[in-house]
């Protein structure tokens, strides 16, 4: 496996994951992206699919990053970056942002994770004693969004991230619908995980060795585009 890992650069991993995640969107969807890897998903939305990106800090219709004299310092995204407000966009306050997010008005969210388990529990905001950023808007978003898509590197620093049961503090219970890594895609059903896609560079046994959770393999297993 060490050999395989070398073949996929960080850039490759990012691209494989983002491209796959972008296939989940339907035309007209309102989507909220987390900070980091999830942000990259915006670059891979298929042609003909119009997705409206929502940001918790007050912008529906997030566009491209802005530089130089195109910057309006009063228009940022949730990561603090300067962005474009696309045609048709709107600004709003935090109460409205969370009416959107917690109220079930966001079609899909894509966000990163520290751990996900076979029940769809998500841990993403706290490693006690080490990493304490806070949950920001993620807890509201995950309980409210119609579809919760977790994107993450399959394994991080040798740690298995798709586990039987999260041991890090949870962000939300049983809210994750889809887990996308550079090696495979799992759908979270009431009965557990179903692998729906696999990166052809890996075998099912490779996945079994790199995932703690039990899972079944879909009879329609698809190859991920790499």
């Amino acid at each position, binding site marked *: 496996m060490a050999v395989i890992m070398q073949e996929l650069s960080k850039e490759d991993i990012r691209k494989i994951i983002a491209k796959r995640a972008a296939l989940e969107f339907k035309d007209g969807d309102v989507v909220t992206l987390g900070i980091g890897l999830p942000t990259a998903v915006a670059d891979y939305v298929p042609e003909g699919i119009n997705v409206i990106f929502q940001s918790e800090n007050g*912008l529906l219709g997030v566009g491209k990053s802005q530089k130089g004299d195109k910057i309006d310092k009063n228009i940022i995204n949730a990561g603090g970056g300067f962005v474009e*407000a696309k045609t048709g966009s709107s600004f709003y306050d935090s109460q409205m942002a969370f009416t959107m997010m917690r109220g079930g008005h966001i079609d899909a969210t894509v966000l990163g994770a520290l751990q996900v388990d076979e029940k769809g529990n998500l841990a993403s905001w706290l490693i006690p004693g080490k990493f*304490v950023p806070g949950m920001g808007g993620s807890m*509201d978003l995950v309980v409210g969004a119609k579809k919760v898509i977790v994107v993450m590197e399959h394994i991080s620093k040798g740690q298995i991230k798709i586990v039987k049961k999260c041991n890090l503090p949870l962000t939300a219970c049983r809210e994750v619908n889809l887990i996308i890594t550079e090696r495979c895609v799992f759908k979270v059903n009431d009965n557990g995980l179903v692998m729906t896609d696999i990166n052809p560079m890996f075998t099912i046994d490779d996945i079994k060795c790199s995932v703690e959770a039990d899972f079944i393999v879909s009879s329609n297993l698809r190859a991920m585009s790499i």
Partner: protein
Amino acid sequence: MKKIISAKEAANMIKDGSSIMVGGFLSCGTPDKIIDEIVRQNISNLTMICNDTSTLGNDRGKLIENKQIKKVIASHIGTNPETGRQMNAGEIEVDLVPMGTLIEKIRAKGSGLGGFLTPTGVGTVIEDGKETMIVDGKKYIFEKPLGADFALIYGTKVDKYGNVCFHGTTRNHNTIMATAAETVIVQAEKLVDCLDPDEVVIPGLFIDYIVVGGDN
């Protein structure tokens, strides 16, 4: 007509031990001129309610670095490593609250409600020590109102009647914080005679004092 005061006069009202709500999402839409004056006057032992503790060297971040904050209630502190350091060293108390719950708690206070039920945080540590209720088969956490002695907010344009409007993503928590504090001070990027009543976002009755911040 609302009283127009200097940032210094605004800070003078705030005492050691006061609780302050401060608007802003990172450095966007935050009353930085008033914060600078609180830093200069070294008013301390403050409880600060805010979305995040901003970044090192900037606005709310300065209050953290200058150790003027006893307790912070926020949804995110990851952008300012000094907050985490002080927390781990036991120098500051940090209450982390989900962002949607935080703004709703503030809104409950400003709207005279006794609390609300939210699905956010069910099954997580957020639930610890709180009441929960099942409504129509779904579990919710009961959250209580949250107010403060002062709300320090930002406004893009403010008129002499205290009406406030915004440009871009500067609204963030400012609008709701204006409803939930004993004394509300707005830092106006621009002071105008009178806004069009259709464009007002915060009606003037919520504002007590105006500080003209100039462009920042």
